[in-house]
């Protein structure tokens, strides 16, 4: 009897609420950024630790853990209609368990450029902002097309994009960053690696002799001191080490900005005035 009353009370209170608002938990900072860019901040009811760290506007939302430690109970307690994730081995069977609990899981891989664009479209459909999503995708596609035609005739420098120096990790052929480099007119010397971010040896880099080194590793302050130790690299001799901030390589909604950063970094520095 009491149970029936309780259920009725819950149903009644739910019905009395304002117009239905989708409740989403995001477990990935790039997906969070996409939702924010689609003006869907009001749908977010919980985020992972990295989203909270990167996006000040969601820092106050309930947290549901980090990449290695998403907390199932914390997610369920937020009563989400959907949980958006990037498939990752670290989260083990989290998706399956959420689905068993009747929670919709939207799983969006983001290694390739097309995958990121699909994420934007799918999230747009999820939060009913299809037009905003289509506009965002169109902006990125236009930037890609323009960059491609602008660099078609220009020389293609041989480039490596370093995401960590010690040990050495670079952008390989499997990453959307490789595609952006290609679009920006660069020839990625690590294109032959099929994975997104292969670990390579310093010897490989010295032998491959890139014309430009794009350094996007976390400790940017050390970049110059590190590379100046290897003057046999053409990029070092020609002073073509470009330090990029980590935000340049987020597979989020503003890839046209990442592309612009890469294009700027690759622009020849012939106009540099000698001291």
């Amino acid at each position, binding site marked *: 009897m009491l149970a029936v009353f309780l259920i009725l009370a819950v149903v009644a209170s739910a019905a009395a609420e304002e117009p239905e608002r989708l409740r989403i938990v995001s477990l990935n900072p790039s997906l969070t950024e996409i939702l924010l860019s689609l003006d869907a901040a009001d749908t977010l009811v919980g985020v992972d630790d990295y989203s909270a760290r990167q996006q000040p506007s969601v820092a106050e939302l309930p947290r549901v853990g980090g990449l290695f430690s998403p907390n199932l109970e914390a997610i369920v307690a937020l009563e989400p209609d959907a949980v958006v994730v990037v498939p990752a081995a670290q989260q083990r069977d989290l998706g399956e368990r959420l689905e068993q609990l009747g929670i919709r899981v939207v799983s969006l891989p983001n290694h390739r450029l097309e995958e990121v664009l699909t994420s934007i479209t799918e999230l747009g459909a999820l939060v009913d902002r299809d037009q905003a999503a289509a506009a965002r995708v169109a902006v990125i596609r236009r930037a890609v097309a323009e960059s491609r035609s602008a660099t078609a005739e220009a020389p293609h420098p041989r480039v490596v994009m370093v995401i960590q120096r010690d*040990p050495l990790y670079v952008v390989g052929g499997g990453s959307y960053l490789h595609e952006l480099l290609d679009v920006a007119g660069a020839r990625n010397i690590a294109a032959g*690696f099929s994975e997104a971010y292969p670990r390579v040896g310093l010897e490989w880099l010295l032998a491959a002799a890139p014309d430009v080194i794009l350094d996007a590793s976390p400790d940017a302050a*050390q970049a110059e001191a590190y590379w100046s130790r290897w003057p046999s*690299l053409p990029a070092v001799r020609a002073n073509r080490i470009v330090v990029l901030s980590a935000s340049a390589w987020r597979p989020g909604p503003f890839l046209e900005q990442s592309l612009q950063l890469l294009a700027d970094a690759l622009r020849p520095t012939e106009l540099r005035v000698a001291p």
Partner: protein
Amino acid sequence: MKVLSPARVAFSLAMLGSLLALALLLAVVSGASALPLSEVWRALIGDDATPAAADIVLRVRLPRALLGMAVGASLAVAGVLFQALLRNPLADPFVLGVSGGAALGGILVLALGSSFGLGYAAVPPAAFAGATLTTLLLYAVAGVRGHVSSTHLLLTGVVFNAFASAAIVFLASISGLTESSNIFLWLIGSLSAIRAEVTGWVVFFLVAGLACALPMARGLNLLALGEESAQQLGIDVERQKRLLLLATSFMVGAAVSVAGLIGFVGLIIPHLLRLVLGPDHRLLVPAAALGGAVFLVVCDTAARTLPGGRELPVGAITAVAGGPLFLWLLRRQQRRVFAP
């Protein structure tokens, strides 16, 4: 048991020394970039090699081989000494928790250092501080009135290692994506952070450790009879143990702080050499230095000579090569013991 004559010592060490020379040669001529031998030679004698070839040979392959030698020698000697001091064949350089302490020190900096403005360069000193603190802690906990019991030391070390791994998992879970991948990489152990200045430190502690261990080698032989017997035979067991444990801990601390955790070198090389050369520490200690150096240099050369320029952490290679080899050794020893 074979008698240890000066001639046999000289012969064994000369053989191992030649192996080491071969390993060094192999390390210098092989790598991911397929330099022709002529170019390697020109770089070595300083005769007009291309700048890239000179950098590859003199500043990538050679320093890395030297660091590999120093780290491999330190780990293998530490393995021999720990096995003798603790009278436990399973003891390896990491058994006393020194490695756990070093890892914890280094990883504290990897995980939280960026908030204090500490970069990657602060990791080796922090790791070494961690190793030193752990050693002191071990003595404080396991020692009673100047006496350090081997069983207590072992237990304390094992428990501390377990504590350190739990703390590392905790730090990895609360830190960011780049930090946690750094932690993971550091735990596997690699020689890719080649800086000439760190090799000097590892060599310094290796030489100090050898200088302590070699004069005491006879005492270590007697220790195999049991601590009491050794005492009765005129060995100041406590003093020896204290000194050697300290020297060995520093040696391991220095090696781990520059190269991370490289497993199996300190376990397999002592057992292999004992099988071939017999258990006399007067030969075993210097032989372990040479043998450990050979093993790690060869493994590291394999780690950085994969086709296509990919690189593996050397710890993965030593484990893959060392695990089966150790099991094989164990089978052989068992057969020998139980043979009719």
